[in-house]
């Protein structure tokens, strides 16, 4: 918000991108590379763990500053992409637990305290996620596309009155709509069935909507699968061509991602989205 923030003279805080085991190639691999606001990345170690951290100005990353940044979509995009880029770069060198965006501590000492406190939990998670990647699977239903594919569209009785012809077309549209969504539902169950033996875990995300969901059609399934790195190709192969013969239905695979969606211990009440 306020200009004139000099990151050198201004007090700095420690922004945490990810946590990993100490003593892996990651310890030194990213040191000095730029993080948020251009601040160089560094490793903060405690016990068996290390946190990937960079210094950020308090004025921008305190409670008020952070809130302002996150409500500005342009700034939020920079934050999110930078955070993600650091996590992605880190995860090329070692298994990491990505932190949620905006995990900020007053200083490195506080980061070490957090690592010490969470060590058992974090080491267990890192063991579980080691050598695994996250793959996203999205299923889209697009009734409009289904119409253009199916031959010629609904046949209309030209002799009928305009009202009746209109209703006939509406009915055909609704039938097409229902058919497409039913087909998309069937494709979605097929996805689950085909990767059941390949994926180690599975979570359901909220379907994407809004301006950022740029794809055509409606996103009806937005899932993430935890897959062993050696199985990623098999996973993709299992889903290849799945919806090719289903007009109006599309399957999209994203990733590999750092295991964002699996970095939290499964909630006792079942794996929800929240």
């Amino acid at each position, binding site marked *: 918000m306020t200009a004139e923030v000099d990151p050198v003279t201004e007090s700095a805080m420690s922004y945490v991108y990810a946590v990993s085991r100490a003593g892996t190639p990651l310890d030194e691999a990213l040191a000095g590379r730029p993080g948020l606001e251009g601040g160089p990345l560094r490793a903060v170690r405690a016990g068996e763990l290390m946190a990937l951290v960079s210094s950020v100005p308090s004025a921008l990353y305190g409670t008020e500053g952070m809130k302002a940044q996150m409500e500005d979509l342009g700034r939020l*995009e920079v934050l999110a*992409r930078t955070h993600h880029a*650091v996590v992605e770069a880190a995860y090329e060198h070692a298994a990491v637990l*990505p*932190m*949620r965006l905006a995990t900020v501590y007053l200083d490195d000492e506080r980061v070490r305290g957090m690592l010490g406190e969470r060590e058992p939990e974090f080491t267990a998670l890192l063991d579980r996620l080691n050598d695994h990647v996250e793959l996203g699977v999205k299923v889209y239903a697009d009734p409009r596309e289904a119409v253009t594919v199916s031959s010629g569209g609904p046949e209309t009785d030209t002799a009928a009155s305009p009202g009746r012809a209109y209703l006939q077309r509406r009915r055909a549209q609704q039938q097409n709509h229902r058919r497409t969504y039913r087909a998309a539902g069937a494709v979605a169950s097929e996805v689950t069935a085909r990767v059941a033996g390949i994926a180690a875990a599975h979570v359901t995300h909220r379907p994407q909507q*809004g301006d950022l969901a*740029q794809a055509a059609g409606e996103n009806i399934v937005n899932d993430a699968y935890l897959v062993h790195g050696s199985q990623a190709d098999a996973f993709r192969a299992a889903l290849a061509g799945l919806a090719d013969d289903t007009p109006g239905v599309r399957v999209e695979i994203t990733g590999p991602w750092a295991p964002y969606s699996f970095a939290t211990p499964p909630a006792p009440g079942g794996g929800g989205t929240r």
Partner: protein
Amino acid sequence: MGASSAASPYGQQQSSANLADILERVLDKGVVIAGDIQINLLDIELLTIKLRLLVASVDKAKEMGIDWWEHDPSLSSRARPGSRTEVPGTPRDGAAVDQVEAENARLRAEIAELRAAVGLPAASAAGAGQDALPGRAEAQDVEGEESK
């Protein structure tokens, strides 16, 4: 995208992932620990992701001509003659709706005349003023109501 993402030191070549996929992971997933800075992510999520993007999506959809729901009388009370654009994929639909509405107007006028002829009070939708000049006045009343 564009200018704002250029400010990220890693740029976009690093990851071809789209912003929605990234945001849903960095905002909604990842290890949640209480840092020293408390941000209510639920607020942020509602504000930024839900409201702003949802609003944006409607505008975007309109830009692309996907606005049939606004012009479909069975889906929207805002469907009115004059504000119509062509329905993508079903080019003759707009004309057909016009015809339906013309037909409706004719039928309403006819009903009003018949009611007047047999001495029934006007349909409630027509409102007050049913005494003077039944037939035509009635029909105009109904149409006036329609095009508001």
